[in-house]
């Protein structure tokens, strides 16, 4: 049989959980955590548990293009072991370059088999951007360009998830001048919704949450106008930041080693992009909820926002346009413009008195005459 690599009858998630030796209690902990993460009510726990108990696991194809695999790394460091053990191990069994055992022709066959076997049923996860420059030679796998692989895999996918900033908005490789023409996948896949899970990397729990939502409800989670799941990307890091009271109070770190930094004041003035970044870092945090950049004293760099590498400097409040020749700061340009304007006006004032002397003297004369004629 040619299809042994991809068994037709898929076990359910719960069966896998049991097989791996987790207890019922572990499973329910995982369920309650996921229910909370995807923003459901407590009462929906039953629904999530039932879905994981009865739904056969989703066949998943996980493609890697131009990326650094930090998304996969983040995913396997998700706070609950079941996330890595079951969701990732099991969903990515079908095809994922990084973690699968197969290689070479065997791996390619596996990909082809999954696509034919589960036509219209598999989830396509894409990590990385697609280089469009030079006919796509910058990233080729098995003799095919990224674009060919993506188009082929996307055609019969049930849903498409763009993992991380690379797949969602191009990330660092698409920074100016974007030599490989790195392109986010929503610009290449036509006629299918793409769930964007931006971040460099995205939070592991967020990634797990998106998959659990797909499983539980059989449809994609509610997305915002940019295609990001609302449950995780509708609030700014700033709004959920524990240092926010310092921001409102007007207490800021001036330099990284000053007294204010030791007191844990707001990092706004050292370039924190929290006020313009939509993500769940302040709530979910990273590495089993240990911390997040701001908590460890570093400003948010806005990694889940489009163009974050081109939106000014990391350690300054952005007011400069990159690619403005030199990076011009609004206030510097403004002050120079103000100086030039003042000088021009002063010149104009002098010229007025020279060129319009007759006119001005006439008015003065007229006014003085009237003053003389007045008796008191």
């Amino acid at each position, binding site marked *: 049989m040619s299809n042994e690599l991809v068994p037709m009858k898929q076990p359910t998630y719960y069966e896998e959980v049991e097989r791996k030796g987790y207890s019922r209690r572990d499973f329910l902990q995982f369920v309650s955590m996921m229910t909370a993460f995807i923003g459901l009510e407590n009462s929906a726990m039953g629904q999530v548990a039932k879905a994981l108990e009865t739904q056969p696991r989703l066949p998943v194809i996980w493609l890697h293009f131009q990326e650094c695999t930090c998304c996969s790394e983040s995913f396997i460091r998700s706070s609950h072991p079941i996330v890595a053990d079951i969701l990732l191990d099991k969903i990515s069994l079908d095809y994922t370059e990084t973690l699968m055992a197969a290689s070479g022709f065997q791996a390619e066959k596996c990909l082809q088999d999954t696509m034919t076997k589960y036509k219209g049923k598999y989830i396509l996860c894409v990590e990385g951007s697609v280089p469009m420059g030079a006919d796509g030679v910058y990233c080729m796998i098995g003799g095919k360009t990224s674009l060919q692989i993506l188009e082929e895999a996307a055609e019969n996918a049930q849903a498409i998830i763009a993992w991380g900033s690379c797949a969602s908005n191009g990330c660092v490789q698409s920074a100016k001048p974007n030599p490989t023409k790195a392109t986010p996948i929503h610009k290449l896949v036509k006629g299918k919704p793409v769930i964007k899970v931006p971040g460099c990397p995205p939070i592991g729990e967020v990634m797990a949450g998106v998959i659990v939502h797909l499983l539980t409800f059989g449809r994609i989670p509610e997305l915002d106008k940019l295609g990001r799941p609302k449950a995780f990307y509708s609030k700014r890091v700033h709004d959920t930041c524990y240092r926010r009271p310092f921001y409102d109070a007007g207490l800021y770190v001036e330099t990284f080693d000053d007294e204010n930094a030791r007191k844990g004041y707001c990092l706004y003035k050292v370039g924190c992009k929290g006020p313009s970044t939509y993500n769940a870092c302040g709530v979910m945090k990273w590495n089993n909820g240990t911390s997040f950049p701001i908590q460890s004293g570093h400003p948010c760099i806005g990694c889940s926002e489009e163009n974050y590498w081109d939106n000014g400097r990391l350690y300054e409040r952005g007011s400069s346009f990159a690619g403005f020749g030199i990076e011009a700061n609004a206030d510097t340009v403004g002050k120079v413009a103000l100086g030039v304007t003042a000088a021009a006006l002063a010149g104009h004032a002098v010229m007025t008195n020279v060129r319009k002397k007759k006119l001005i003297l006439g008015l003065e004369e*007229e006014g003085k005459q009237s003053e003389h004629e007045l008796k008191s």
Partner: protein
Amino acid sequence: MKTKFLHVHRLRRVYVWELPVRYYHWLNALAIIVLIITGFFIANPLAIQSHQEAANQFTMGWVRVAHFIASYIFFFNFLFRIYWGFVGNKYANWNQFIPTSKKFFREMWHVFKIDILMMRGKEHISIGHNAMAGFIYFFTFLAFLVQCLTGFGLYASMSTWWLPKLFAWVPFMFGGDSFIRTVHHWSMWFFILFAVIHVYLVFYHDYVEGRGEISSMGGGWKFIEEEVFQNEEHHTPNEPKNKA
């Protein structure tokens, strides 16, 4: 017996700026001043040293509140002015700002020659806005629009009211809050430069024309020479359309 000065002009009072226009002007000026000062503070807050707990302070909070209140005033004032451009007197009409005829451009060129290049020629006699000023105000209206779009676009995600929510598409359209914020900051400098030039030119016109340019935004009156009035020597950027 004193001889009367021969060239003393009889000045005729013209009601140019109606009360709503004057209210608009000063409310706008006040809102812009508050917005610029608080805007600078928000972009780069002062270093405040304090031994008080953060919970007892709200410095940035108050500055932002002031910015938001001023922005609402600015926004509704702007909407009102657009409305008044359709119902106000001929000097407040929208056609004083938007060139719809060749005459408008001819006038602009004339003002440019006389007032900016200081060339010799017939002095330009405007009662309301001169064509050049009107056209530049058109750009200020565009700047108002940019500031409203970017400002409320940034504010939308913090607000629960439907009005700012209407602007939620702006950051989505232009690739995120960060870029919108930068545009908002750069555009502010237009207002500063505009204000400096505007105030200078008001003094300039008052000084060389003697028609009450400065005080016109107080009482609403300008004064033109009787001959100018009789001979219809004055200029307007666009002839007012006859209302049916």
